[in-house]
């Protein structure tokens, strides 16, 4: 093999190794705010997974001798109105929030993406009917639709996640449809069609991988919105039910004891804020990293 051939082979390897995803990952690495966001999210994921190990007390165990105790070495975040350790409840509450964020967005993706794919690709009456349905759902403000759905389905965390997921679905359907409309006349789709690939294969194997970047960005930002929505529903009493810990329901109780135990309101709110801010930072960073024109 000549030196020239070796050089050419090395160049091909380099070009192949530098995939768009790898380039995006490198660009993401140059954004400190997004990396901080990612680190905080990983920290919360770690806390949620290791909750039984890192939680100092049982989150639902009451202690009538430690009612509304201020933060101390014994209870780092203080105790609540029936003597439960606030730190332990914040730690266990991480599970409900992260679960709500991930499950709701998965539901929204599972419903919205296929609808957007088919609607954008088929066009015509299918597209017209699907988009008017989506317009109807978008006409009802996100949280109001989630409250209405949760109210009719019944108040619990599972129904809250379904309500949030269904309410977020139109955004993914719209986004996917817009991306499919832009992609379906691209040369690679025409080529796949000319080769005789069935529509289903063209959609799933050719179009979907090429439109996944904006959907990924939207999903990251939607997790932030879903976490706030779950906290809001739990705050209203429509999400996680007592005594199971949830940041939103902890704040709902805390607002009744603001003058006696202000610490009850500080920590769960700070946890929601940090996690939501982190997902927003990561989402913004991903958007810049996946779209080089924005960088």
């Amino acid at each position, binding site marked *: 093999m000549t030196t020239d051939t070796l050089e050419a082979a090395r160049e091909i390897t380099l070009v192949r190794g530098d995939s768009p995803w790898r380039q995006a990952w490198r660009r993401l690495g140059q954004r400190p705010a997004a990396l901080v966001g990612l680190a905080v999210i990983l920290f919360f994921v770690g806390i949620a997974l290791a909750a039984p190990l890192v939680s100092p007390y049982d989150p639902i165990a009451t202690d009538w001798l430690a009612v509304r105790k201020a933060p101390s070495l014994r209870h780092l975040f203080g105790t609540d109105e029936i003597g439960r350790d606030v730190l332990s409840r914040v730690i266990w509450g991480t599970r409900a929030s992260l679960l709500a964020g991930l499950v709701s967005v998965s539901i929204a993706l599972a419903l919205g993406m296929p609808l957007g794919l088919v609607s954008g690709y088929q066009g015509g009456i299918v597209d017209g009917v699907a988009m008017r349905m989506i317009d*109807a759902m978008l006409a009802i*403000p996100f949280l109001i639709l989630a409250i*209405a759905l949760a109210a009719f389905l019944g108040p619990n965390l599972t129904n809250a996640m379904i309500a949030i997921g269904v309410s977020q679905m139109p955004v993914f359907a719209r986004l996917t449809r817009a991306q499919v409309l832009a992609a379906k006349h691209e040369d690679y789709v025409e080529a796949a069609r000319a080769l005789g690939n069935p529509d289903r294969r063209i959609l799933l194997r050719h179009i979907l991988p090429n439109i996944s970047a904006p959907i990924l960005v939207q999903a990251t930002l939607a997790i932030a919105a879903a976490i706030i929505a779950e*906290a*809001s529903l739990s*705050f209203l009493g429509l999400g996680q039910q007592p005594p199971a810990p949830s940041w939103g329901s902890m704040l709902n109780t805390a607002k009744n004891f603001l003058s006696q135990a*202000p610490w009850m*309101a500080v920590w769960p709110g700070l946890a929601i*804020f940090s996690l939501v801010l982190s997902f*927003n930072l990561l989402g913004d960073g991903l958007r810049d990293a996946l779209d080089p024109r924005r960088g």
Partner: protein
Amino acid sequence: MTTFLARRLALVLPTLFFVSLLIFGLQQLLPGDPALALAGEDRDPSVVAYLQQKYHLDEPLPMRYLLWARGVLAGDLGESIRIKRPVLDLVVEKLPVTGELAAFAILIALSIGVPMGVLSAVNHGTVVDYAATMTALWGLSIPNFWLGILLILLFSVTLGLLPASGFVSRAESLSHNLATLAMPAFVLGNAIAAAMMRHTRSAMLGVLSADYVRTAGAKGLDETRVVLHHALRNALVPVITLAALDFGALLSGAVLTEQVFTIPGFGKLIVDAVFNRDYAVVQGVVLCTALAYIVLNLLADIAYVLVNPRLRG
């Protein structure tokens, strides 16, 4: 313009039809006999019988929808099980309270969001831009019910400056009205301000690089004059139109804000209805919200076309 209006209206009608289907469909999510669920916790047999007759529960589903839709078109949104009053009356009664709160919130959002967006765009890529962008991100990430609780903690519990909850109408006392609305309006305006800052920044960045703005600068005009008179006036057009789209966020926010500050508005009406299993009220509020959103969006689109002659087609 007429063609645009006709096309836009033609899109609104099927949307309204699907909205009505969606809201009617909510009732079908109730487990078991809808009349039993709708009758509230007492499940008074006379109320159950009345509901079965009122909602035509013995009729097939499509017929029930048609009968329901006919009632809605005639202004009959049903009756509150708890308060025993027509839902439409309740909505009309609560609307001015939420309207006043929303108006203050938008005022606060505009006075924070627009200047911040302008500052950010004019100082693009500098520390000022970064700080403004981060502040907006903070505003978008902070749950408004938590911000409300923190403000109560500071201004009511610690400093004793503002009332922690309640609402006083303007007719009763203007000063008390403003005092009761100050914190809720700030909480509600905060998230909208963050969105408005982003809209303004992005619109200003587009306008600042336009030829006519560069020409104004090249003619030796004062920079402030160029920014405020030439750039901002044009950038505000899409910002104000986009503000109509923030209406949904405003109403969602109002539900939580009214709950935190115990304000007897539209948001509190739906939450109280949820807890009292007053489903007709829930449906009525959702329907009115959707209608308001559709009308506002239509008006925003028309306004956008009116100020953009190129779009009139």
